[in-house]
């Protein structure tokens, strides 16, 4: 089997057995990226020399019989994670030439485990978008059909994993930015519980919703990578001090007796009919493996998109304020005065979607509107979280579609923000409630992948990964590779 088709787990075994070296593996993948990424535009920065040096070090370490959990294994970081000495652009002109003086905690942990970072992946500008079209560096294309979007905002990471540029990539998910692109590219995407993975060094979009996670091809790989990334970080006050379980230990266990909840609203008119069929087929597979299903009610879930589009822009408007052209990032030339400096640096440095959200957020936080929008949205957010809590009294997981349809064509929704926002209708609830959630490939509609969405209770990652892994033992959707990238 070609080396690029192997999963993280298979590559780990190959390295361990001495079937190939990390240097050889890294060279092979860098070659693929060099020859194929022109089609996808999945990378903002490819870190070839650094990757080869890291691979050589990993091979040395292995000879000495040591090495971390990811020793010599290739990975890609979403360009939202700060990486010392390598550009961190966030897909924005604002940070086009920004080189971080420090590593994000996630980057540090993955490096400490011995991983080889191939580069930084393209993304929607500051993670604001669901199609990867808001990137200053151009849209990422979907490996399954190049005229389609890979989803977003972690579109570069998802496309890279789907195109077999790497077996795994990091992503971030504020409203679905890991899971929706995973669904649209036929990959596995996991957003952990809020606070499970440190946000330190991850450029903030909406701080109370942002969570780092993983994109892989198998649930097993997701478990392996999450185990490295998760854990308390004293530099992030919202990270939670709770031991990290061995996610690999329980994924082999049966899901017999697992109680799976189905949300009625997730199968109504907004869902593409064929996508609904694939998801129902997937649920039938879970039932065949001994899971029991029952309908659960999330009475306020329909309010999740409007709630999200108040809370997220509000936090965004404040988080984006530090990009003022004073200390780092884009700075307009020859400003006449301070106001001109701000207006032009920010006006020229930010793209339309970022500006739209800054304006929306500024509005909802303004005197006289705060109560009507921000405060009300926070109350609804609490109701949605309560709905989930009640539902999880009866079920272990909630399943449904990840996205309302398979990948759409680039350009189709750029002029209609509301249609674009509705792409995250099924995923946003988990962010509002801080719950772990995952997308697993569950079939194709017109040759385009469809994802099954699993949501768990707080710190329910083990159940998600076990269910995903058991499902993938029965199905082979995740093994399918886009023709151009075989």
């Amino acid at each position: 089997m070609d080396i690029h088709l192997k999963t993280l787990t298979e590559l780990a075994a190959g390295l361990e057995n001495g079937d190939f070296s990390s240097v050889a593996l890294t060279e092979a993948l860098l070659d693929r990226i060099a020859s194929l990424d022109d089609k996808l535009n999945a990378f903002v920065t490819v870190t070839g020399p650094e990757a080869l040096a890291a691979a050589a070090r990993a091979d040395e370490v292995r000879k000495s019989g040591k090495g971390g959990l990811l020793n010599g294994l290739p990975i890609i970081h979403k360009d939202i994670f700060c990486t010392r000495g390598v550009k961190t652009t966030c897909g924005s002109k604002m940070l086009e030439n920004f080189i971080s003086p420090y590593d994000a905690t996630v980057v540090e942990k993955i490096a400490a485990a011995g991983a080889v970072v191939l580069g930084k992946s393209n993304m929607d500008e500051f993670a604001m978008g669901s199609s990867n079209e808001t990137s200053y560096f151009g849209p990422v294309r979907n490996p399954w059909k190049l005229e389609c979007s890979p989803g977003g905002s972690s579109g570069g990471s998802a496309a890279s994993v789907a195109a077999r540029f790497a077996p795994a990539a990091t992503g971030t998910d504020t409203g679905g930015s890991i899971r929706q692109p995973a669904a649209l590219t036929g990959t596995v995407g996991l957003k952990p519980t809020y606070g499970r993975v440190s946000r330190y060094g991850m450029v903030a979009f909406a701080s109370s919703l942002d969570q780092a996670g993983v994109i892989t091809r198998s649930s097993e790989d997701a478990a392996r990578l999450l185990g490295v990334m998760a854990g308390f970080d004293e530099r992030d006050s919202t990270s939670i001090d709770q031991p990290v379980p061995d996610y690999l230990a329980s994924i082999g266990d049966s899901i017999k007796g697992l109680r799976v909840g189905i949300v009625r609203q997730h199968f109504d008119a907004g869902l593409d009919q064929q996508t609904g069929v694939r998801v129902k087929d997937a649920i039938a597979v879970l039932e065949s493996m001994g899971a029991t299903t029952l309908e659960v009610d999330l009475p306020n879930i329909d309010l999740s998109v409007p709630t999200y589009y108040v809370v997220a822009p509000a936090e965004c408007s404040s988080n984006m304020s530090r990009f003022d052209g004073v200390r780092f990032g884009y700075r307009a030339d020859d400003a006449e005065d301070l106001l001109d400096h701000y207006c032009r640096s920010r006006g020229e440095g930010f793209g339309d979607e970022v500006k739209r959200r800054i304006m929306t957020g500024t509005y909802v936080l303004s005197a006289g509107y705060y109560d009507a929008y921000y405060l009300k949205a926070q109350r609804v957010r609490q109701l949605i979280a309560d709905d989930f809590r009640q539902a999880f009294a009866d079920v272990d997981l909630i399943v449904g579609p990840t996205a309302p349809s398979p990948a759409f064509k680039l350009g189709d929704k750029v002029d209609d923000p509301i249609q674009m926002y509705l792409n995250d209708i099924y995923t946003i609830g988990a962010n509002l409630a801080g719950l772990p959630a995952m997308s697993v490939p569950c079939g194709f509609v017109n040759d385009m992948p469809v994802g099954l969405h699993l949501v768990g209770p707080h710190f329910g990652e083990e159940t998600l990964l076990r269910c995903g892994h058991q499902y993938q033992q029965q199905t082979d959707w995740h093994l399918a590779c886009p023709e151009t990238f075989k």
Partner: protein
Amino acid sequence: MSAGVSKSGWEVVIGLEIHAQLATKSKIFSGSSTAYGADPNTQANLVDLGYPGVLPVLNKEVVRMATMLGLAINATVARRSVFARKNYFYPDLPKGYQISQLELPIVEHGELYITDANGNEKCIGVTRAHLEEDAGKSIHEGLDASSGIDLNRAGTPLLEIVSEPDLRSAKEAVAYMKKMHTIVRYLGISDGNMAEGSFRCDANVSVRPMGQEELGTRAELKNLNSFRFIERAINIEVERQIDLIEDGGTVVQETRLYDSDKDETRSMRSKEEANDYRYFPDPDLLPVEITDEFIEAVRKSMPELPAEKQTRFIDEYRLKGDDASILTASRPLADYFEAVIAATDASPQIAANWVIGDLAGALNRDGLEIADSKVTAGELAGLVNRIHDNTISGKIAKQVFEAMWDGEGSADDVIESKGLKQITDSSAIEAVVDKIIAENSGQVAEYRAGKDKLIGFFVGKVMQETKGQANPGQVNKILKDKLKG
């Protein structure tokens, strides 16, 4: 103007917002040092610079300090308080927002007692005290056409203490400010250094006709950083407002700046121009949860406060009330005094007289703080001991003190080297007395004829003869005996 009533029958209403810089070693949300006076931007790390991806982590020490203040002013310490972002753009504000507290501050409903113009105790309400971070500062000097930014101060912890509009004159405002200044320094939660900006205030000032219930429109005077300026700025602003209203004008709500050079206040910005700060809870920080146990532990660790100390000085040391008040005005002074009396058997009042009198005078003359005193508490006790054991008289002691201040050694060294030891040998004193009586027969006759006041003349003569070293009590007694004839 007295007690808040102007000549023309106006009542002055003032509320103060004091910014006390908390005396933590590191900043409120980062590990950078808070030390004053370092080269620009050498004490600003990535968190202070607001770099992409960095996050604030609360320095728990500020919670302890705010709790101490809350307990000291008999306030409610919130079991749960919340940090909020105050959003505005300015180059010295790296994140584009200041982390502060709005709806749920850490301290609420306190009170502070001051003495008003009539000498009565007056309670001033403290609305709230909240934690926040300071901004950096812009630098214009030495840079041609551009401005520089120094972020050393960015992230320095501040406690903003907001009073009720209970103050009725500039003098009361200063008394309140001084009282708060004493308390924060007693608690050790702020160095109170006003010249370095560690303790400063904004004053909300309005006037209303005497007897009117409704408050007048207020002006906010920004950044007053000396007691003198506070008094001056408020009085000038009060005059301006009264003149304005009496001339048929109206006061507009605005922020004003006091210019100490021109001795006037000037408009900075009106209410209409004011920022909408778009406060909202900071999602990067958890609410601050405080337990009863924590509050009790802080309470147990609290130092004695000025009012308690003053009472104790009166009860335990039998000091005069005014003296106790002066000695407890600052903790270092009170500590100095207590160190003196710990090392002497003399009465505390004598020690107090020395600390308040000659020592305070010398400090004042040389512009020194008590901590920099050239005579240590132990050394002063040594001097007091020599008075107590009659080695020297109180008068000679003044001479000895000056020599000690000038670095000529301990009291004993000075007494020894200058030969100032008191003459207590009765026969020696008698000899001198005999000599004086013999030389002044005229005065002796007048004395014996009933002119008692002349005793002073004879004492003076004897002291002159003995260079002031004769024991005054003995001189008196021997003189009186011998003059009887």
